[in-house]
């Protein structure tokens, strides 16, 4: 009898413990709202502290909002958000990039920007960056840290390789020529250029402007065709680049940044914020030294000199399931446009701001030579990748094909035919 009483008491206690938080209002304690912010910036060493500081600043100015950052690796964020949303446990706010906003919108996960952000704030956003969050005519997110890819060239290594640092490559053919010329004179430990050849959607984002430079236009309406002479030319170039040790195969773009920080990378394809990352990796390197060593230009263009780039903007999106959309939007606006965030994060790391008013409020943005080069040469070359529901089904087989080309001796024709067959067989 006594045992039964104890058991019943334990069960009742466990039941109460599990039920009490539910009735407490999902994270609301004494009027304080708790919001969850899934992001990769607090997972990365170089950005964790400044972003945590912005969150602290936000919490001190909004004592009724408590922010819980949830760090998730960049490569895992889409699948983590997918799992969270589909299990009914979506966060309030999340960081996104590339196809994330499109794919999450297609799943029905996101609240539209009109639903959560005031009109005057939306009008202040840089239009080209804001429109990258548009799906079927509606914005589902906001830009946080715009970051189109530019071509960084190490002037010291160019000189060492016998190249003219005042004449960086203009077209893809100039680029091919310069990297081939640089390999010989440069020591073995120098990597000529960094390129992301991983089998992931982000790998394709980096590849896309180069495909365009070779004249390839793989997306035509609803169809995708990679079995073309232009794509073959691109594949041949990748194979040659690996065979001749111009680049390292299978690396993520982030893995080339420490190499750049050690002064062992001649050409780097990255957004403007890479400066902040490189400086955070090598604390012996000063900003002045970086600015003197590295120049920036647009990515190598096509034979007519037309340049293309992909914008790996960091974006923010509010989830439809969020019970605290207003608080989430408030945090998003603070991250994007508060003076504190602009000075202590965006400027410090090396992003261009996402709002037009920021340039007037923080004039230092206009003085940074790297940011200046991005504004003058890179930002206008952004092309939007046509994301859609089959995007992953198309680009993952293609990137696997790229890896097949650079890691085997299989004929490129055979690889491309295989890629096309997989794309044709999408259910």
């Amino acid at each position, binding site marked *: 009898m006594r045992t039964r009483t104890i058991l019943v008491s334990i069960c009742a206690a466990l039941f109460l413990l599990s039920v009490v938080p539910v009735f407490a209002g999902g994270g609301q304690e004494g009027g304080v709202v708790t919001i969850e912010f899934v992001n990769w910036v607090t997972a990365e060493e170089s950005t964790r502290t400044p972003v945590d500081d912005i969150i602290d600043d936000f919490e001190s100015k909004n004592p009724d909002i408590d922010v819980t950052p949830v760090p998730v690796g960049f490569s895992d964020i889409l*699948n983590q958000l*997918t*799992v969270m949303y*589909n299990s009914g446990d979506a966060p309030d706010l999340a960081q996104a990039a590339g196809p994330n906003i499109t*794919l999450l919108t*297609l*799943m*029905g996960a996101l609240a539209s920007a009109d639903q959560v952000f005031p009109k005057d704030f939306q009008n202040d956003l840089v239009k080209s960056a804001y429109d990258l969050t548009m799906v079927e005519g509606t914005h589902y997110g906001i830009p946080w840290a715009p970051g189109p890819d530019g071509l960084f060239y190490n002037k010291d290594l160019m000189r060492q390789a016998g190249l003219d640092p005042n004449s960086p490559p203009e077209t893809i053919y100039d680029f091919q020529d310069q990297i081939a010329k640089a390999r010989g004179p440069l020591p073995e430990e120098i*990597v000529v250029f960094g390129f992301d050849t*991983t*089998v*992931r*959607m982000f790998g394709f984002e980096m590849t896309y402007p180069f495909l365009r430079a070779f004249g390839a236009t793989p997306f035509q309406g609803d169809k995708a065709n990679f079995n073309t002479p232009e794509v073959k030319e691109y594949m041949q170039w990748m194979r040659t680049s690996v065979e001749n040790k111009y680049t*390292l*195969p*299978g690396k993520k773009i982030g893995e080339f940044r420490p*190499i750049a920080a050690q002064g062992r990378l001649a050409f780097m394809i990255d957004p403007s914020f890479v400066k902040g990352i490189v400086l955070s990796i090598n604390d012996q390197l000063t900003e002045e030294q970086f600015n003197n060593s590295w120049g920036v230009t647009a990515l190598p263009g096509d034979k007519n000199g037309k340049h293309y780039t992909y914008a790996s903007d960091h974006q923010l999106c509010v989830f439809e399931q969020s019970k605290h959309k207003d608080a989430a939007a408030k945090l998003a606006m603070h991250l994007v446009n508060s003076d504190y965030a602009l000075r202590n994060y965006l400027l410090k790391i090396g992003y261009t701001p996402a709002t037009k008013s920021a340039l007037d409020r923080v004039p230092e943005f206009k003085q940074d030579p790297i940011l200046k080069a991005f504004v003058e040469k890179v930002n206008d070359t952004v092309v939007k990748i046509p994301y859609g*529901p*089959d*995007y*992953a*089904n198309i680009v*993952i087989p293609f990137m*696997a*094909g790229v*890896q*097949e080309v*650079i*890691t*085997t001796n299989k004929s490129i024709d055979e690889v491309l035919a295989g890629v096309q067959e*997989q794309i044709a*067989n999408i*259910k």
Partner: protein
Amino acid sequence: MQASSAKIERTRRWRRNASSAFTAIRFLAPAIVVMGVVILFPIINAARLSFFNYELTKPKEIAFNLFKNYAYMVQDKLFWHALKNTVVFTSLTVASGLILGLILALVVYELPRRLHGLRGVLLVPWVIPGIVIGYLFMYMFDVEIGVVNYVFRQIGFIKEFLPWLMRDNLAMIAIIITHVWNQTPFYMLMITAGLMAIPDEAREASFLEGSNRWQEFRFITFPYLQQIVVISSLLMVIRNFNFFPIIFTMTGGGPAYATTTAVLYIYRLAFERFDIGYASAVGTVWVIILIFVSAFYIRTLKERF
């Protein structure tokens, strides 16, 4: 009178049986409930989803499609490729791990007593989590900074650094080496337990009969170890069929699909392509294969013990 006492006895026996059955149910119930919720429900749900066209990026097109996912699987070259990779990975890791584990166990068993603590040191790879091992070996096999290339070049095995994780045939070898390093201590532990159970008299008698070291191993030691070898290998076959962390961290299934095993393929389908229906179909087939392997394992266990 006799009939009545028999009836009473039957009733007593029935009550005793009922009481012990009830006790057994009470003890098993929590485990069965937890297993049902955590394991059985997801399996049944995955099997149900496998009959649907269920792509997360196309929520409007979710519909029942009977066996279409299974029909697609039959002609899906990547599925068969992943299956082949799984068989290659499993057979090579189990065979190599077993042989090395056997050798290690025999060597350590013969060492003087004061060196038996070495067993503890040799067990370290077994207790390190797969993800940590994956990252550790990923850097060791790195084409640029990897210690493997450095050592091989120093001793003259290679002339230039090899892209271990970025060459289709080398990547599988690198993963197998890593996994064997991780699981060999398990075999060593199991076989050592077997060695300790061999009666000293049997071995001594064999030497007295004039056996040399090899004959003693062949005709005395190994037959004693046979059961342990079979059981531990089968256990590892099941484990390696499902193995994920080391492959995922070291190569992510690449280069291209060179190290994509079935579980990795399921992961890619579900979390890269968001095709939950097809991923569930492949997962269901995988569960069926594993049920067969497990049934064989349990049968062997029953027959031999």
